[in-house]
């Protein structure tokens, strides 16, 4: 009998507690929503507007304390030159931190390659940054919980907890991660979390004179980025990996890797 009493009391207590918690929840839904607004950060890149000046890369390096001389970067700009015969030549010297100032393409060990002007069918720049995927492969593979996604969709790295195994670098299909040359932990683009969470713009988008880069709230139908994604033909990178990236591209070509 004692046991039954105990169960009964417990049931009453649990039911009572849940009712009171539920009651609290129903007091003011508006207040709750205001405290936790619908927010999911997304990014829009217009490849037509990008001129390959690399100001975004320069700004990013300063903003995020990645030494200018270090050959790693949180964001970079790629150049694609598609020839009339269908061949594609691509390069990205030093992540384009100095912009593109020559017609020669840097093919690393294969040297500098020049594509004659008359052979060029189309050529364009593609800025790249962390896609802050909805199901980030890099977060899934972190063995210690040092990288994670915030409620508003930004993927961050805890510099104090990262053991530096490099598994996230291997796991990212976009190659956005690297070892921080000074901190010696995994590092990547944060969507300038310190700026956007105070209502500011990302350093790269702010530095872009042509508006090729924009950050916005994908959950807000009035947000310019959300509207552009809704009304224009946009693409994402490497959707075959199932990571559901949140960086959208206008003017994405099939040649873009």
């Amino acid at each position, binding site marked *: 009998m004692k046991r039954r009493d105990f169960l009964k009391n417990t049931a009453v207590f649990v039911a009572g507690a849940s009712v009171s918690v539920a009651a609290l929840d129903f007091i003011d839904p508006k207040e709750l929503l205001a405290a936790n607004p619908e927010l999911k950060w997304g990014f829009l890149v217009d490849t037509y507007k990008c001129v390959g000046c690399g100001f975004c890369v320069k700004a990013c390096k300063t903003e995020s304390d990645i030494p200018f001389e270090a050959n790693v970067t949180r964001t970079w700009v790629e150049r694609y030159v598609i020839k009339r015969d269908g061949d594609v030549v691509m390069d*990205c010297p030093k992540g384009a931190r100095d912009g593109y100032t020559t017609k020669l393409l840097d093919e690393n060990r294969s040297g500098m390659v020049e594509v004659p002007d008359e052979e060029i069918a189309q050529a364009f720049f593609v800025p790249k940054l962390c896609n802050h995927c909805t199901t980030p492969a890099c977060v899934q593979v972190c063995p210690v919980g040092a990288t994670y996604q915030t409620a508003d969709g930004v993927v961050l790295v805890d510099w104090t907890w990262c053991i530096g195994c490099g598994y996230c670098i291997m796991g990212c299909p976009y190659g956005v991660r690297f070892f921080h040359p000074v901190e010696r932990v995994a590092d990547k683009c944060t969507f300038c979390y310190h700026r956007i969470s105070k209502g500011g713009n990302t350093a790269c988008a702010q530095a872009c004179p042509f508006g090729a880069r924009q950050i916005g709230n994908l959950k807000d139908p009035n947000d310019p980025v959300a509207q552009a994604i809704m009304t224009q033909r946009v693409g994402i990178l490497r959707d075959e990996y199932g990571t559901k990236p949140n960086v959208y591209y206008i003017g994405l070509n099939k040649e873009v890797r």
Partner: protein
Amino acid sequence: MVEQVAQMVVHGEAWTIKDLFVLPNEYVYWSIQIVLYPYMTGLVAGAFVLSSLYHVFNVEKLKEIARYALVFSFALLPVAMMPLMLHLMQPFRGINVLMTPHFTSAISAFGIVFMTYAFIVAAEIWFVYRKFIVESIYRLTEKQDCTRLERLLLPIYKVISLGAMDISDKALNSDHKAIKFLAALGIPVACFLHGYAGFIFGSVKANALWMTPLMPVIFICSAVVSGIALCIVSYYLFMEIRKWAAKRGKNWLLPDALAQGGTAIPVEQLRSIQEHEVKITSKYLLIFMTAALTLEILDMIFRGYTAVKSWDALRMVIYEHDFMKIFVYQYGIGNFLPFLMLLLPGLTTRRAVIASSLVLFGVFMMRWNVVIGGQAFSLTFAGFMEYSMPIIPHDIETFKEGLGGMLSVIVTPFIIFYFLNMIFPAFMTDNESH
């Protein structure tokens, strides 16, 4: 202005050679230490499986090498962890894997599986050597003129005996049962320890070469192969050393008290043990080699046949950049040649040992081709990377991720074994041990 005074090293830049279109952050981040990591865990798992063949399946013929394999497997254990620690950018935070494991990551299991496995091997050794430990305590306590080593050993034995001094037949019988249980339990755990090392690679969806469900199985098979091969080679070498010493009337790698009548074991007896064990073991090597080879070739054929988007880049790596490493070193010298050597009739000890050494090399090349080969192409599939192993280190990083780090990892198990052998004589031949 904020000045950049802090020391700056871009990890991977020192040993990565890029060609064509490679993304700016791409480097060979996982280098020699990660090649050695599955190699060493493979050796641990393989050596343990070999010892279990005797303990669980009662393969009497493997009796002598089984005890050796068990102790050697224990000596290899800390070394399986060593490459990981050397590779971590923040080695002092390695403990985080145990503290906040994130089980959606294959690496997170390492701490727990590794410790479980270490406990099993340690417990098995404890049961195998318990009688010897207790006898040694009695012997050393009574002995008057202890050497310095013996004075050191006595307290060690007292601690590891855990106070269990009962060596009646009944107690020894329960030891037997415990050994059998632990050896049986150890096989799946050893396979898991290594299979999940394969899973670490096989589950990286961003890597076209790594991503295959066959990876864990291939890793387990080649692990058993390399573990057995290493046991054959090292057993042969240690026995050679003992034979060399026996000719000079000395008894090496065995405590003096255990040597029969205080003098060395006859050379002839050592030779017959050596021959017998090495030849029998190589039969098992052959069986596991067939399985490993079949899977690897199946994987290769499948990739070529299905030829998905990544195949163009993979084909360049497999058939052009790494042709020598894959087809000549790994398959030719490391697989088919020893395969033939072991199959041809009239197997001699020396031939078995040479074949086993080639197998060891072949499995090492397989690890290399998987780990380094998997980073030999860019995520863009339009560029390639090459790992040039730092030979002469110019800082701690190029030491760890170069030849120096590799040699330290390879030498360490033998050093550990040397000391471990003082406590648990691996070449003990008395009939009562298991």
